[in-house]
């Protein structure tokens, strides 16, 4: 089973793939938001409003063990969680809604996912900036290390991408499990690390929580936001292992699925 042409170089392939992903990004923007400028704004406002809502609720609850500014704590963290959830929840529709484009042989299944994820990431990074400035404007301090915050955002993006590739492959093979995955993303919220810091937990629970990769990402984010004011602990290598394994399984799954996804 092989397909030989006048052997294109790796650079040719990379160029083609970038071209395809670029075209897919533009196409995705068109179908998702129409050709009206207003549509692009919803991309920002949806996570922004949700994040502000969560921030306000926690502000009202008060007494959260002295963490400066619940808004900064929860609203900014929530943007990262939203990115994870949205990328995973949208994954099952990625292949069906683009099936017609598979008629063009340079369009590969992972490209469909990469294009969507780029849009999602661009939006979330934009919102992350806006929220951070909003926090400063509301009297908070300037983040201790923006680089660490961006690193946390990048790790969350890559982890979400690996999981989304897996979900995309799995739902193409077994229809209907996406409902189950929606449920899981909700159940995951309390253990994700968004609502707690590791050192708040009793030791036995800490030992369990460090198995969850997003806990490390949120700890890194808070290290970047609050610096040494709070005690954070994270293992970036552990998160990277998760990223590599999920990508590997996801890409392999898509390769298997590619044989089956029919062009009707």
């Amino acid at each position, binding site marked *: *089973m*092989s*397909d*030989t*042409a*006048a052997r294109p170089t790796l650079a040719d392939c990379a160029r*083609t793939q970038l*071209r*395809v992903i*670029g*075209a897919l990004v*533009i*196409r995705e923007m*068109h*179908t998702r938001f129409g050709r009206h400028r207003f549509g692009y704004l919803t991309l920002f406002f949806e996570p922004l409003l949700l994040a502000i809502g969560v921030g306000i609720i926690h502000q009202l609850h008060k007494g959260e063990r002295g963490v400066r500014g619940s808004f900064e704590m929860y609203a900014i963290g929530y943007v990262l969680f939203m990115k994870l959830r949205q990328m995973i929840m949208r994954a099952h529709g990625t292949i069906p809604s*683009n099936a*017609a*484009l*598979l*008629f*063009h*042989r*340079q*369009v590969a299944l992972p490209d469909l996912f990469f294009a969507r994820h780029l849009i999602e990431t661009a939006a979330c990074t934009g919102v992350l900036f806006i929220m951070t400035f909003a926090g400063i404007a509301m009297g908070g301090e300037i983040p201790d290390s923006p680089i660490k915050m961006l690193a946390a955002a990048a790790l969350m993006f890559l982890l979400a991408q690996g999981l989304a590739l897996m979900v995309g492959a799995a739902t193409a093979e077994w229809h209907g499990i996406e409902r189950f995955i929606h449920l899981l993303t909700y159940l995951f919220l309390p253990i994700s690390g968004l609502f707690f810091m590791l050192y708040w937990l009793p030791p036995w629970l800490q030992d369990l929580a460090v198995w969850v990769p997003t806990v490390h990402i949120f700890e890194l984010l808070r290290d970047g936001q609050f610096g040494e004011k709070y005690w954070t602990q994270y293992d970036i290598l552990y998160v990277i292992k998760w990223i590599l394994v999920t990508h590997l399984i996801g890409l392999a799954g898509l390769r298997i699925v590619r*044989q*089956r996804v029919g*062009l*009707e």
Partner: protein
Amino acid sequence: MALELIDVHKSYPMNIGRKHVLRGVNASFGRGERVGILGRNGSGKSTLVRILSGVEMPTRGRIRRTMSVSWPIGLAAGFLNALSGQDNCRFIARIYGKPSQDVVDYVESFAELGEYLRMPVGTYSSGMRSRLGLAISLAIEFECFLIDEALSVGDNKFGRAFAARLANAGLILVTHSPSQVRQLCTRAAVMDQGTLTFYEDIDEALATYNSL
């Protein structure tokens, strides 16, 4: 410069065992050749088209593609229904690395779609869809056009322009309509029960096909 299939097999998993659609297809299409492939429904034509275009991989066997081959142009032509004809043009132009405005201009002058070019492809009639697909593929200038079924190139202005344009390009036309093969092709093959047989003489191919 050619497109070659070497002992290509394709089977799909079914509820009970596998369905063997292609059982050892050998073929060679030279540059500029215009070949018609005739086959009854269910003979494996569509599978062959998808393999020729590179959209699907064979279960066994090899494909050697040393010229640019179009996507399978036909009714289900690789468009997104929600996008306008124009946006579909742009998308396809981008993935093939052509300036998108040139492709849109060409399609506008050639496909006779008028204002429909700015309407969603989902609102098109089947004739309009195939004109759009053909016009885009002509704008991209493939060395070999791969055309699947139900192609309404009649003897109108569009049909004549299309035939003229094909005069210096290759064509693989997969169809169950003998008249189109006679009109456009110089060589023909018959697809039957998963194998492909070539005939140097079109009349011989048509006779075989009619006796199936």
